[in-house]
């Protein structure tokens, strides 16, 4: 997977967390996911698709991270993953997918995003779209860690490249 197609999602996570939570976060080294089990206890998953591209992105949080994010966003301490925390995680996934979409438009790629789904539980699995490798990008937020999983299949790399070249020639 070309890094230029991953960066919009990474940038979207950083921007979303900095703006909505007021924290800067660090991206750690990415790796390829080798099993279906999520790294976290709660995941917000959202699909995206168009004629150019199909895939899904998931934000997956250990319970402690999810509760801390909820506290920072809502100013309220909760001790367990409840409906409000689930909703917050789903909305974060929604914002990240939407924000990445805006950056993808600079690459002449557009897509529609689905309504997010949220899965909760120790060792839950995440089903991604397409039979492609899933890239996992860990993030560090103060003492808390969370992960983004991305699956992506470009349907027409050639036509996208051709469109970009054509655009550059006419610019």
């Amino acid at each position, binding site marked *: 997977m070309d890094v230029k197609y991953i960066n919009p999602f990474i940038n979207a996570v950083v921007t979303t967390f900095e703006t909505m939570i007021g924290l800067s976060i660090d991206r750690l080294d990415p790796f390829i996911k080798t099993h279906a089990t999520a790294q976290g206890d709660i995941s917000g998953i959202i699909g995206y698709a168009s004629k150019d591209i199909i895939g899904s992105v998931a934000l997956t949080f250990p319970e402690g991270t999810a509760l801390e994010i909820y506290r920072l966003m809502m100013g309220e301490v909760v001790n367990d993953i409840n409906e409000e925390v689930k909703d917050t995680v789903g909305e974060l996934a929604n914002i990240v997918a939407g924000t990445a979409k805006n950056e993808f438009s600079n690459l002449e790629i557009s897509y529609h995003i689905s*309504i997010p789904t949220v899965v909760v539980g120790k060792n839950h699995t995440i089903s991604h779209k397409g039979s492609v490798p899933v890239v996992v990008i860990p993030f560090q937020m103060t003492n808390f860690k969370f992960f983004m999983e991305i699956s992506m299949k470009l349907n027409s790399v050639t036509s996208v490249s051709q469109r970009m070249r054509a655009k550059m020639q006419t610019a």
Partner: protein
Amino acid sequence: MRILVVDDSATMRRIIIKALNTTGFNDITEAEDGEDALTKLEGIDLLLTDWNMPVMDGLSMVKEIRRNASFANLPIMMITSQAAKKEVIEALKNGVNDYIVKPFTPATLVEKVQALSAK
């Protein structure tokens, strides 16, 4: 001023309402999607809406609202992460008056709401 906040995320509705409350906008009604919002328009002075929602999305709702002459002048602000140029244009063409891109800060939201409500 009565404000209708439309978003399928309760978290986002709370964030928006909290920001509005800090600047004296306290008469606020909530709706979970476009269809829900269409039943709550009476007496509303300003509408803030998400785009990507189940049942009826924000853009479909705006089109429906603008078909009704009674709400032709209702100020509508879209609050959404969908902000590619063509989406913004599509929203504005269909009757959205202003646009806020998620993620946003409370200060940006309040500033935009104050500007739109003053028109």
